């Protein structure tokens, strides 16, 4: 007798945070539906209520150990709005330096430590080898480059913020300390090595893309909109600007959107099977308003990077597809171009004489009871929205994290990959890894978008209509 089944991948490995995937099979053993469940819970919006607003950047930095700087920046920008101040130009530039350093180290973590095992060793590699040790064995230089590039970004964060994780240097009104000449020079000295790593990794990635033709055509390769913050001239930025949305054909759907009015065009939907909300573009409704954010989206919405090498690579990137670049596999490619951009921008910002100015903070009392801060985090657009009372105490918080924007697309991507690669009632590690690998393309940070509890364990089950386990694969 034919029967329906469910496959459960719990948890998904080599991502930031905890999640599981369920694949629903029809009577013929073919995948009919798939869901990406985020199984951890966050409570940051509630636990901040009652705290003084000026504590928010430091509290928000605790959301994540990978991208605390993005939360610091978005939070401080929301607090700038509460103060109703314009921060000093040097503080603006220093925050940008901080953000670029973080994007570099976060992208390096995603590409080198989490995804390079798939890219170098292949999707069907022995799971016990699919890690940095397997990479080091197969390509020592690649492993060394990953370590050096991540260190490069972390050391900049440490030089500016005093520590690599959860620095509290970005404050309402600017930053707490100016940049010293010695630290500026030390960062500049490290740039050539970082640039060389970015260049050769990009070349390496382009050289292996041909091997992944099947994955490129099935890893989240479908039409959606793309959203990102761009500069006034529609150039790439991580710090601030206007929101732009393009459709799958690359045409602009919405432009010049003020990020502070995000609630007018972004809706949030709660699903009973995940702690991660799904966002959607309100004018198109749920779920037709699906869009993607992050590196792929940023390169689809921006007309240019604004730095020479990254612009060359962007032009080549756009040649991948006449429309917007649709396959989520290309998140990796986009990530590498962004690393190149970050290093070039760092050089430009640090060579600006104004970067050493001592005027780095505007001081004021609260002048508004509501403020929104937005920036581009490594994984996409990040919103922090606060309401305070007359005493400056937080009364209400809403956070929209990049991974939430991608939730609908990640779910569709899992379904597409599973439909293509998962067949019948027997599971193979390669099938399973591809279902996880498409999630890794998005580099979701579930610790950010929810809050981490529990321990990692991978379990895949085929469950029959009566609840019986037909097959099971587990990774301890």
């Amino acid at each position, binding site marked *: 007798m034919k029967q329906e089944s469910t496959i459960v991948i719990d948890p998904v490995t*080599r991502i930031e945070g905890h999640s599981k995937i369920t694949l629903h099979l029809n009577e013929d053993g073919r995948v009919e539906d798939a869901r990406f469940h985020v199984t951890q819970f966050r409570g940051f919006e509630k636990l901040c209520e009652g705290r003084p607003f000026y504590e928010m950047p430091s509290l928000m930095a605790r959301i994540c*150990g990978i991208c605390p700087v993005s939360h610091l920046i978005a939070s401080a920008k929301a607090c700038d709005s509460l103060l109703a101040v314009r921060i000093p130009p040097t503080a603006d530039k220093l925050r940008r330096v901080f953000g670029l350093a973080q994007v570099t180290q976060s992208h390096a*973590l995603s590409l080198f*430590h*989490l995804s390079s*095992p798939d890219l170098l060793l292949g999707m069907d590699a022995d799971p*016990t*080898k699919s*890690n*940095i*040790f397997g990479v*080091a*064995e197969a390509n*020592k230089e690649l*492993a*060394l480059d*990953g*370590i*050096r590039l*991540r*260190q490069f970004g*972390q050391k900049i964060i440490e030089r500016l913020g005093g520590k690599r*994780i959860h620095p509290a240097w970005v404050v309402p009104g600017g930053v707490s300390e100016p940049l010293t000449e010695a630290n500026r020079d030390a960062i500049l000295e490290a740039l050539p090595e970082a640039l060389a790593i970015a260049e050769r990794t990009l070349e390496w990635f382009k050289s292996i893309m041909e091997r992944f033709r099947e994955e490129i055509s099935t890893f989240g390769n479908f039409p959606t909109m793309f959203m990102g913050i761009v500069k006034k001239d529609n150039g790439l930025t991580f710090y601030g600007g206007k929101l732009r949305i393009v459709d799958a054909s690359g045409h602009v759907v919405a432009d010049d959107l003020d990020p502070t009015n995000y609630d007018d065009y972004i809706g949030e939907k709660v699903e009973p099977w995940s702690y991660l909300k799904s966002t959607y573009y309100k004018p198109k409704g749920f779920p037709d308003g699906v869009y993607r954010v992050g590196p792929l989206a940023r390169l689809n919405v921006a007309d240019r990077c604004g730095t020479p090498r990254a612009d060359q690579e962007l032009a080549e990137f756009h040649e991948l597809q006449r429309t917007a670049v649709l396959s989520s596999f290309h998140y990796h490619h986009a990530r590498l171009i962004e690393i190149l951009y970050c290093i070039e921008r760092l050089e430009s910002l640090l060579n600006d004489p104004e970067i050493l100015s001592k005027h780095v903070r505007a001081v004021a009392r609260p002048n508004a009871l509501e403020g929104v801060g937005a920036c581009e985090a490594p994984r996409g657009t990040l919103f922090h929205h606060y309401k305070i009372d007359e005493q400056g105490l937080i009364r209400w918080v809403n956070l929209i994290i990049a991974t939430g924007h991608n939730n609908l697309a990640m779910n569709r991507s899992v379904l597409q990959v599973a439909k293509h690669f998962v067949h019948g009632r027997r599971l193979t590690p390669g099938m399973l890894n591809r279902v996880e690998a498409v999630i890794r393309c998005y580099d979701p940070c579930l610790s950010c978008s929810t809050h981490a509890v529990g321990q*990692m364990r991978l379990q895949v089950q085929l469950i029959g209509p009566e609840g019986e386990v037909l097959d099971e694969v587990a990774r301890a």
Partner: protein
Amino acid sequence: MPRVLIVAYGNPLRCDDGIAWRAADALAPKVSASEVEILRLHQLTPELADTVRIFHAVIFVDAASCDRSQNKPGMIRLEEIRGGTSEPARFSHVLSPKKVLDLALQLYGASPSAFVITVAGKNFGHGDSLSAPVASALPELVARIEHLIKQSNP
């Protein structure tokens, strides 16, 4: 150039998990910065391989759970470890001390002498205070690390 690296890791906001950071705080004024470098970390990442490779000796300081090792709270354990001997890696971005040494050996050919010294914790809940048995173990932990430093840095 310091010869000895102390890697104190754990979460100081999870009570006894912060014992290593407490030990680092207590050690800092007792050792010469020219001989001993102290790192306070939340977890061990691959980048640490690049750091440990230049030291003669590395001492990892951590909290241990009672249930897994059948320790009693406050019990101190010392183990000498070396690279190239441990089990396959489970994660790519969070490592054990042995895996840090494996990576240092694999990537750089570096093989510093290394020790893991742990204190069994009792309370890993939210907070920045140590439980009584772990707080009582702190002076002995610091003394044993000092002894290891002397051994490693004659």
